[in-house]
């Protein structure tokens, strides 16, 4: 299917994901006898909508505990949303096996690259098996050609094909990140979800991997949803930025506009906070407080306890995400 610049590949529509801790026997009995015991529910992702167009690099900026990995997993169908819908080229992605035809043997066009290059590779498998297993299962290559195919993919991510008989522990961190990328590329995806894919790497290795992502984007026409907390990486890589706070989208804008003129107080605070090479001997003036627990989020706007502009209204009413300029959205009562 040819993708033009305006085709929306991935549509995340009002998606929510809640995790509940089931009550144990004692608690259930206690509740039956009238005690005020409730299930604990975490709203990891709360009514989030994101569109990703073909060829775009969309970065999600999320601090830990605000639902970043959950959203990444929702986007590639590893989690089933509790509400809303994730669609890829107009088809829902929740049940990958049944959906992509031929009893799940057709290649899934969305692949995920995980944060930790140490934990996401099976230590007992050779690189050849790690990279070659999925295309073989999906019938992309004949079993006899797997070796040559793996060699080709390894070359593409900048690894020596002669290393394909090795195990993950025989590689350095940067090489392992490349193996993870090779594994994702092996099934010829159109869309990559990268969950903090460069966060664990050293600066010089990180630069190499970022360059690899940009090269692959050009040579293979890939689309990325890049989840990161590193604003330097985000600014370097993305066309559009979506900022989330405690499971909700607070701002979404083209990258240049967001960095030039952040609208939401949280985005402003994040940008003020980021360390930069050109800021010397500066005095740090941090935003106060910490991210509240998603088990018990603040009422109204989630950011109000830390916000310098909080008004009475912010504690009561959650602001809706509204268009504030063409292509820019923000959820803040200050825009009214």
């Amino acid at each position, binding site marked *: 299917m040819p993708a033009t610049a305006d085709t929306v590949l991935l549509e995340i529509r009002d998606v929510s994901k809640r995790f509940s801790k089931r009550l144990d026997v004692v608690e259930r009995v206690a509740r039956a006898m009238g005690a005020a015991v409730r299930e604990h529910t975490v709203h990891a992702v709360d009514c989030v909508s994101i569109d990703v167009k073909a060829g775009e690099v969309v970065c999600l900026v999320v601090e830990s505990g605000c639902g970043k990995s959950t959203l990444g997993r929702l986007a590639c169908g590893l989690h089933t949303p509790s509400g809303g819908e994730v669609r890829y080229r107009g088809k829902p992605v929740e049940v990958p096996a049944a959906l992509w035809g031929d009893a799940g043997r057709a290649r899934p066009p969305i692949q995920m690259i995980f944060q930790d290059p140490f934990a996401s590779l099976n230590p007992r498998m050779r690189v050849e098996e790690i990279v070659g297993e999925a295309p073989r299962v999906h019938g992309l290559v004949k079993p006899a050609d797997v070796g040559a195919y793996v060699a080709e993919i390894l070359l593409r991510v900048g690894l020596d094909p002669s290393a394909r008989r090795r195990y993950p522990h025989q590689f350095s961190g940067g090489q392992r990140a490349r193996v993870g990328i090779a594994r994702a590329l092996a099934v010829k995806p159109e869309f990559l979800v990268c969950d903090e894919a460069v966060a664990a790497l050293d600066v*010089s290795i990180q*630069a190499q991997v970022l360059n690899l992502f940009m090269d692959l984007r050009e040579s293979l026409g890939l689309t990325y949803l890049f989840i990161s907390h590193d604003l330097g990486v985000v600014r370097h*890589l993305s066309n559009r930025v979506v900022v989330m706070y405690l499971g909700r989208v607070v701002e979404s804008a083209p990258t240049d506009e967001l960095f030039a003129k952040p609208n939401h107080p949280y985005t402003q605070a994040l940008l003020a906070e980021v360390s930069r090479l050109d800021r010397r*001997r500066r005095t740090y003036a941090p*935003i106060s407080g910490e991210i509240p627990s998603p088990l018990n989020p603040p009422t109204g706007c989630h950011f109000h306890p830390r916000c310098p502009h909080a008004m009475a209204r912010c504690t009561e009413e959650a602001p809706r995400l509204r268009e504030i300029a063409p292509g820019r959205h923000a959820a803040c009562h200050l825009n009214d």
Partner: protein
Amino acid sequence: MKLLEVTDLVTEFHTREGVLRAVNGASLALERGEILGLVGESGSGKSVTGFSILGLIDPPGRIASGSVRFDDLELLGLPEESMRRVRGKRIAMVFQDPMMTLNPVLSIETQMMETVFAHEATTPQDARRRAIEALARVGIASPGERLAQYPHQFSGGMRQRVAIAIALLHKPELIIADEPTTALDVTVQGQILYEMQKLVRESGASLIWITHDLAVIAGLADRIAVMYAGRIVEEGPVAEVLDAPLHPYSRGLLDSVPAANAGAGRLNQIPGMAPSLLRPAPGCAFRERCTRAEDRCCDPPALTQMNGRAVRCCNPLQGA
């Protein structure tokens, strides 16, 4: 007189594959009240340098040679008993992972009072008062109540504050901080940097901030020392080193940072990866990855001093 002078420090680890020189002739100097940023990638020996200063190298590691002068005291070869009087009292350390430094089965109160009693014979009331003061100083709300809690009841940022509070209990003259903000979120990292900067300025202590993040150093430090393969390859005032690095490795590191001022172009990456320290090739350790390498780089380059800066390179940038 300098507060700390490390000269030609060599720290080795004896492994099955051979002797690994994690620190290979590193030299550093630190004035009172100065903040030094020690920058390097994983495996460059920056943390081992920090541990060596405090004498925290256990077998199979050992400090093979060199000198660590702290004030008027030579720390290398100091008997363990005397070293213990310095460690935690005059030199304190903050580690990367606060969950590893704090004992999970002891309350914060027990751990902080233990630290006070380790160096001072005082009353429990006084120790408790000082613990509360220290917690308040690092920005922990209601320190009296928090004191009775256990590490797991604190968030990551709060735990790191507790670790810093413990390090500050005895008003040390030198604090060595080993990547204390790496595991934290951006906004929390900003808060910790703010507290650290304030505390160092107020108390006049010196600080060695070990990190791989050049951007943090840019905002915090007075001087910067860049480490590569166990050696300091460049050292100087932060602004000068960041604006006009002399060593090709420093230049490469700076170019690798997805800078907030660059658009979506390719990053100017350093090719290859850090060499193994087990069997180092003779000559400059960066030679294999360097674009300016020449034949004479096969001889080990000496540290050249000029105008308050130092560089270990045969062919530094900007001529010279």
